[in-house]
């Protein structure tokens, strides 16, 4: 995209979802997912450079500093995914902070004997 020198993979938006044989829309395939993740990573790197964690709360600042990456992000990913990734960024940051605090207090990391699966996403608004 011009002077932004992003990798060629992020140039073209993936095609609109096609209909499958029985009418429902196809899910994003491996290629589309890869594009989405690259756009997400580009956006998040921009946020990191500007020390923004919560791009939803600090929306105006994020828009000002990382607006272009955000547009790429929204083009390459479904909107539910965009919201999910943004919220998860905040959750992961808070989790890392908690872990750092615990380690400073001398807690020991246990081997993951307990199942560590988290739900796939916070429920999207309907």
């Amino acid at each position, binding site marked *: 995209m011009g002077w932004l020198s992003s990798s060629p993979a992020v140039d073209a938006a993936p095609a609109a979802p096609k209909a*499958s044989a*029985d*009418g429902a829309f196809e*899910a994003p395939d491996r290629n589309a997912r890869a594009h989405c993740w690259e756009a997400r990573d580009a956006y998040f790197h921009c946020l990191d450079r500007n020390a923004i964690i919560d791009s939803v709360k600090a929306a105006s600042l994020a828009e000002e500093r990382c607006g272009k990456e955000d547009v790429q992000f929204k083009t390459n*990913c479904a909107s*539910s995914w965009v919201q999910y990734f943004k919220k998860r960024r905040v959750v992961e940051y808070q989790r890392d902070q908690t872990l750092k605090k615990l380690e400073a207090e001398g807690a020991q990391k246990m081997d993951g004997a307990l199942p560590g699966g988290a739900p*796939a*996403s916070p429920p999207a608004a*309907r």
Partner: protein
Amino acid sequence: MANSAPGPNTHGGTAQAALNAEADTEYIGLLERSLADIDLPFFVRMAVHIDLASRHRLAAEILYQWGRLHYPLGDNEWADARLDEPFSWQAGLLFFIAGAGLTIYFRTEKERMARKRIAETTKGIGRPKVGGQFELIDQNGQRFTDEDMKGKYALVYFGFTHCPDICPEELDKMAGMIDIVQKTNGNVMRPIFITCDPARDTPAVMKTYLKEFHPALIGLTGTWEQVKSVCKAYRVYFSTPPDVQPGQDYLVDHSIYFYLMDPDGDFVEAIGRNFTVERAARVINEHIGDWRGKLDKE
């Protein structure tokens, strides 16, 4: 002869030795008188052997010293009378080999018992009731029920095709596990992907989606009620609303485990996200190795 020697002979005990010294002198005297014309040095050497073997060490020691004194043969001939030590290097080696063998045996048995305990907690009374009857359709539109799952092991994963990154990641891991298990044990495990999003995940959508991960993957979907019922049977959190409009964009909450089911259709173990591909495959292979019933390998 050694047994009828007067007084017990023991290893230590100088008091005991003093007591027995007299008896032993008598014993040796007996020996000398009665065996006058036999090859005494040889016989004495033999007697030393016998005494050592029967633990009469003191008697053996006395005989040995007396023999050396009266029959000064080369040291070699007397030396080999002492070879019959109870602790030789052969005995030591045997001890260590036996010890190593027993340790290895106990360790493998302990691990096997631990796995058996896991596998059987689901078979007795009060077991976690994961799994059970269900009826769905696969990615080719064919009916697929819990009966079709029996006969082989099954690895079940719940997800949905519009999943941002967790399901693709887990499905890639699953493909890795399938390959390792197939290499080790052959075609004994059915990998099954059950959708939590029946509105969007039709059989055709599932077919296209799963082809990218592994050809052996079976994708199951159905009506909202059927999917809700299988999620309930597997204790999977299911949050999709029943009346989703076509084209709506949403994400689905679901538990993220691989459920290993045995050829009887009973639950064996849940494998979480913290397992690597190799570790998960090893766990599955170990359970398959432990299975003593019929196992379809087609």
